[in-house]
């Protein structure tokens, strides 16, 4: 048991029975998890270079899937998906960071904070369809918003781009992923000791300098986590593009679904593999950026406080 020897800070001889039971379950579970989950996730990179006949896999390496994918407009599709997800990630970050900063260090009213936390938690557990389906009837040509705009006289004829447009997809994403951006940033800012901020002030730093040189670096793990937790699911969202884009805004999820439905497994794999490769590269860069503040192990340290 290699892992048992590495168990840190424990008197091994005394705890050998418990540790070994724990280590056994940890290694057993980890083995199953990596074989059953991590290997398939990485395996799609390999699979995209194969060909299939029905559900039989032919084990010859080829790049035919990628050629077909780009021939049939895969480039613009991937570009559009990444553009929309990236735009909304930046907007979410700009909206969420000041709000999280206020929640963590500014807000004094405990009840207001508690209500806000609850409001930020509940959406995680609601059905994504239930959360956006109403926009379709509210924003339609004869819907609530258009009628109101016409009545007030802001527009003379119904606004058509309110739904089934890129605007609508952006709007859908805004609500859907805001809590996922706020939470990690809030947690990382809340963990910053007030004494650091006091010290920065005592040393004569302006509030702006404190923000840039103290708060921002220390909350970087939260910002990175927030970016990952909103950008990643946005890329693969099935509900918002379908409900808000309504066929006018094609994103990868719909195409993957259609390809699998048409038993075009390899092209679906190629499309997924491109997204996966981009994601992995993106995350390597992000985690590398975290190295100066302790990387992933920092998660445990911050949980411990």
């Amino acid at each position, binding site marked *: 048991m290699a*892992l048992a020897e590495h*168990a*840190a800070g424990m008197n091994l001889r*005394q705890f050998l029975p*418990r*540790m070994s*039971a724990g280590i056994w*379950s*940890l290694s057993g579970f*980890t083995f199953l998890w*990596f074989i059953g*989950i*991590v290997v*398939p*996730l990485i*395996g*799609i990179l390999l*699979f995209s270079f194969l060909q299939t006949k029905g*559900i039989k*896999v032919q084990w010859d390496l080829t790049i035919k899937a990628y050629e077909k994918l780009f021939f049939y407009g895969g480039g613009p599709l991937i570009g559009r998906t990444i553009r929309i997800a990236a735009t909304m990630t930046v907007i979410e970050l700009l*909206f969420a960071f*000041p*709000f999280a900063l206020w929640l963590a260090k500014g807000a004094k009213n405990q009840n207001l904070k508690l209500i*806000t936390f609850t*409001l*930020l938690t*509940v959406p995680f*557990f609601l*059905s994504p*369809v239930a*959360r956006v*389906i109403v926009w379709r*009837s509210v924003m339609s040509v004869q*819907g609530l918003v258009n009628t109101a705009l016409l009545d007030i006289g802001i527009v003379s004829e119904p606004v058509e781009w309110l739904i089934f447009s890129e605007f609508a997809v952006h709007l859908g994403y*805004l*609500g859907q992923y805001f809590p996922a951006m*706020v939470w990690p940033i809030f947690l990382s800012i809340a963990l910053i000791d007030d004494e650091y*901020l006091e010290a*920065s*002030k005592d040393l004569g730093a*302006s*509030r*702006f300098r404190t*923000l840039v040189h103290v708060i921002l670096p220390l909350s970087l793990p939260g910002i990175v986590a927030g970016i*990952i937790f909103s950008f990643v699911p946005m*890329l*693969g969202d099935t509900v918002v593009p*379908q409900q808000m884009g309504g066929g006018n805004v094609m994103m990868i999820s719909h195409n993957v*679904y259609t390809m*699998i439905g048409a038993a075009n*497994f390899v092209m*679906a*794999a190629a499309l*997924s593999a491109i*997204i*996966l490769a981009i*994601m992995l590269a993106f995350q390597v860069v992000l985690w590398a950026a975290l190295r100066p503040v302790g*990387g992933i192990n920092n998660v*445990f340290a911050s949980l*411990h406080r």
Partner: protein
Amino acid sequence: MTVLAEQTKYIGAAPRQLTLAQRIAERWPAWGSIFIGYFVLLIIYFPILWLMILSVSSEPLTGFAGDWTLRWYDDMLYGTGQREGEAYAVNSRVFDPLLLSLKLAFITAALCMVASLLIGPILPRVRFRGPLLLGYLMPLMVPGIVASVSLFLFYRLGLHWKMGEWSLGLAHFVWAFPFALLAMLVVSSRFDTRLLEAAADLGASPWRRFWDIQVPILKPGIFAAGFFGFLLSFNELPFSIFMRAGDITLPIYLWIQSGAHNSSVPLIFALSTLITIASIVLTFIAIKVAFGEKTVTVKKIRTA
């Protein structure tokens, strides 16, 4: 980048007398960020509340509320709705997915509780905890649809296993476990291992140490893992899309129905409203258990 005037206490300039205009100029970044935050919360909650209101309106598809009726609930429950001679037989079409979703949610919750109890206490204390945690959290870092397709291709085309309820359960577990594990780690990484040392000194067997010390202290984490498992499984969509044979879970039913640009959508409003209310109630219970029990347990231990 915005600076918060709220922080004057910590970071601000020396105290001085301010005119009203100066105070407004000083505080607007704070008010601006607060306004934006609650504005987005409004964008999140408006559709949810409006959904509930529309579900008791007679013409929900127009987006206008009014002319209150419980007809859509009636249609959904009994499938007896008659509309211009059309017969709706949605009864079993709604309840079969509901039962399947409940079954999967309970199984996922149980698996999450057991797995996070096995992994949670030990993970913070091993050397490769960072890479291991990354491995466990991988489903969070890959878009759902990509992960779902990967698992489908691996099991169906790679291993030639037939999809079915087992694969739906697996998919839901894969999705929910990272969250359950994180919830457990919040509790377990604060766990004081000296309690186990003390128990061992007093002659407690490993099993007793596990059952009488670890499990009670980690109870909030176990409950939280269970709730995460249940709720995340119950509303899970992207993973379920491919990891199923012909099975239809409730979110899949809603997704298919809402994708159809036609008139059966009003029933979805009623159904979504019920699911949403149930989810909100469960979330409140979960929050209460996760944050309420912790103090109780600590008190019990202190007095014991």
